């Protein structure tokens, strides 16, 4: 592999998106959790939940800022690094990109209002209603941007003849075969990750000795919702596999190291691939599971990679990314399920330190799953940038300075990542919930100050 403009552009795109997606995921998921917490607080008339919403919202503003600036970077970089691609694709898929900006606009306006009106309304429910547009705006922007990405995987709604595009149908392009599963999976995994990250932070504090009601309520709330979202994510992930089997079989085959088209195909977990002979060693085989993943029945025929010319194969290391993502998905569902079971049947073990440690581990793992999932779908689409129409190397810029920009942006993301983390940690350490409860006269204040 050469370290040319093409390679540098790919790395810079991956770097920016990989950094943005951390904040985008939080940006999509956390408003949902804030909405749930504030609503619980009003319904149960319990100030703990409202405080929870308030504190989450405060941390959220900091991550949103980084999400906005890195998102701006992507918006511009797509044109700067892939000008030919944007020129071509823009003719067909400009609509959802354009609508996304309205969704952001809507979200930004109401987020501003929400943050500065905590005590301005006589009825707390009015304030709670203001978070709904934020949830709608952020999930809608995820929806729109994901349709663009879905289009890159299964383009439709136009004809391409000698480089000229005709017969354009913007809505058909937007609602392409990849859209339903992709949008649903992206949304559910963002909700799951946000709920789990919040649960992990809470569990961390409980491990460090904070045992007041406030933390217990926070942990129960986040873990219960984590379970819901984890199940949804796994079910939709399964549907995504079925989508791939039908519309992008080479991606599924690469993820599964599945070379021969066959029925009753085995699912391969882990293992090592011999690049020459294409033999797999040291793997764990689950008989017929791949056929079931692809079509719900052991007799489903699963297309193998050998049906495709070799220069159109995606890189085969995506197998590990896929396995890890699915593995983490199982882990998250299991931990959340365990917590809920223990809470129902063995109440006194609810605060078992080992259980709490498993929850803490789930936070970073869920974010890792997001990264793995995206790298898997993006790399799994290669060598296409627009599957079947344009190869990635045809879309790239001709500018000679991408290397310097790569250095510059790496530095920027490093600084933003570090400062953002430090600011968040300081923010919550300087003003722990106990102190805030004391100040607001909520029961439980002043106990167990860390």
């Amino acid at each position, binding site marked *: 592999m050469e370290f040319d403009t093409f390679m540098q552009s790919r790395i810079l795109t991956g770097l920016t998106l990989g950094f943005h997606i951390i904040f985008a995921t939080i940006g999509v998921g956390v408003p949902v959790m804030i909405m749930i917490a504030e609503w619980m607080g009003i319904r149960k008339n319990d100030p703990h939940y409202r405080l929870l919403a308030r504190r989450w919202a405060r941390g959220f*503003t900091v991550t*949103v800022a*980084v999400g906005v600036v890195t998102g701006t970077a992507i918006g511009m*970089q797509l044109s700067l690094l892939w000008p030919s691609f*944007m020129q071509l694709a823009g*003719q067909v898929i400009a609509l959802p990109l354009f609508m996304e*900006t309205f969704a952001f606009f809507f979200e930004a306006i109401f987020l501003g209002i929400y943050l500065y009106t905590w005590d301005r309304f006589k009825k707390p429910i009015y304030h709670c209603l203001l978070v709904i547009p934020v949830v709608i705006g952020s999930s809608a922007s995820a929806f729109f941007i994901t349709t663009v990405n879905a289009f890159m995987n299964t383009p439709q709604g136009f004809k391409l003849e000698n480089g000229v595009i005709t017969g354009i149908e913007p809505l058909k392009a937007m609602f392409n075969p990849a859209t339903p599963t992709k949008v649903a999976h992206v949304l559910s995994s963002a909700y799951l990750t946000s709920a789990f990250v919040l649960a992990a932070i809470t569990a961390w504090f409980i491990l460090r000795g904070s045992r007041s009601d406030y933390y217990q309520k926070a942990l129960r709330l986040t873990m219960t919702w984590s379970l819901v979202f984890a199940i949804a994510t796994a079910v939709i992930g399964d549907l995504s596999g079925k989508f791939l089997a039908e519309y992008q079989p080479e991606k599924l085959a690469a993820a599964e190291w599945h070379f021969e088209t066959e029925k009753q195909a085995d699912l391969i977990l882990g293992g090592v691939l011999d690049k020459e002979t294409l033999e797999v060693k040291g793997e764990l085989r689950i008989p017929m599971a791949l056929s079931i993943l692809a079509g719900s029945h052991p007799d489903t025929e699963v297309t193998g990679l050998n049906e495709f010319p070799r220069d159109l194969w995606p890189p085969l290391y995506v197998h590990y990314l896929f396995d890890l993502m699915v593995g983490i998905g199982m882990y998250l569902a299991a931990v959340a399920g365990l917590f809920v079971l223990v809470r129902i049947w063995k109440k006194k073990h609810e605060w078992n330190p080992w259980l709490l440690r498993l929850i803490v581990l789930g936070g970073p793992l869920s974010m890792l799953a997001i990264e793995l999932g995206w790298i898997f779908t993006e790399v799994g689409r290669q060598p296409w940038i627009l599957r079947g129409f344009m190869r990635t190397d045809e879309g790239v810029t001709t500018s000679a300075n991408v290397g310097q920009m790569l250095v510059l942006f790496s530095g920027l993301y490093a600084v933003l990542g570090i400062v953002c983390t430090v*600011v968040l940690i300081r923010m919550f350490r300087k003003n722990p919930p106990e102190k805030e409860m004391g100040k607001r006269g909520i029961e439980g204040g002043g106990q167990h100050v860390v």
Partner: protein
Amino acid sequence: MSYELIGITVLWLFLYGYVIVASIDFGAGFFSYYGKVTGKGEVINQVINRYLSPVWEVTNVFLIFFLVGIVGFFPDTAYYFGTALLVPGSIALILLAIRGSFYAFHHYGSKPNTFYEFLYGTTGLLIPASLATILTISEGGFIEKKGNEVVLLMDTLLKSPYSWSVVLLALVSVLFISASFLTYYAHKAEDYEAERVLHKWALGWSLPTIFASFLVFVAMSDHNMQHFTSMLDNSWMFVVSMGFFTLAVYLLMVRKYYGWMFLSVLLQFGFAFFGYGKSHLPYILYPYITVQGSVNNPVMAQALIWAFIGGLSLLVPSLLLLMKLFLFDAKYVKGR
């Protein structure tokens, strides 16, 4: 009206919106830092923060809207500008990123931090300069097409008097727009001490603004005669702009009707901005891209316009609510 005309008008309107709200934002950041260094900070900071905090994110969306919109309506711009602007565009991006995030770190973090404030105060002045350069490039003469490659002539750009006059105009306009808005806001907040300081700044930056505009005119005649003649054909717009400028300065001097004063500033820049834009047509980038030649296919253009109408009917009420709560709510403005 044809699709391309609707498209470019809408985009230009949003760019105008960005110029105004971003100027207020950037200038305020700079004043607040300057105030801190010179010890006048405490007086004006409160006014600045109360206005800025709820709206900074909205400002950024105006820019995104323009960027995404122009690529949507005129996909060829992605190709030309995309290829040529990698370096200046990336620099502007990094400045925007530093400014936006450190603003949030400073204001939402646990304690104010002078270094963060320095960062967002100064980047606020560099961003208008770097974004203005992109408008300069659209005048032509700085981009060359060699076979399949589009190159930016960095040297020519750095040595061009026109380019520097635009940078100068961008800087002083930011400070003028910002100071005149904040004077109005401080007055509404009945914070007379802050008003006094800001009023002085507004007056102080008024003459440099008009001086820089004349410089741009002169440099333009030297750089792009075609655009300059076309500007002369639309000279009434610049005359009206000048009229509103005079009115604004007059109101500032007599210290009355600050609301009307700021409105005059808006109209001054509005007329000049649309005069410039109108005479720039049909070119988006001299001489490579025209609006007619690059407009997206009619199907997509129509879809975008419908999306725009739908989006606006959602946004306008929300924006009005935002303004009602934070700009025109006397209790909030006065900090109660």
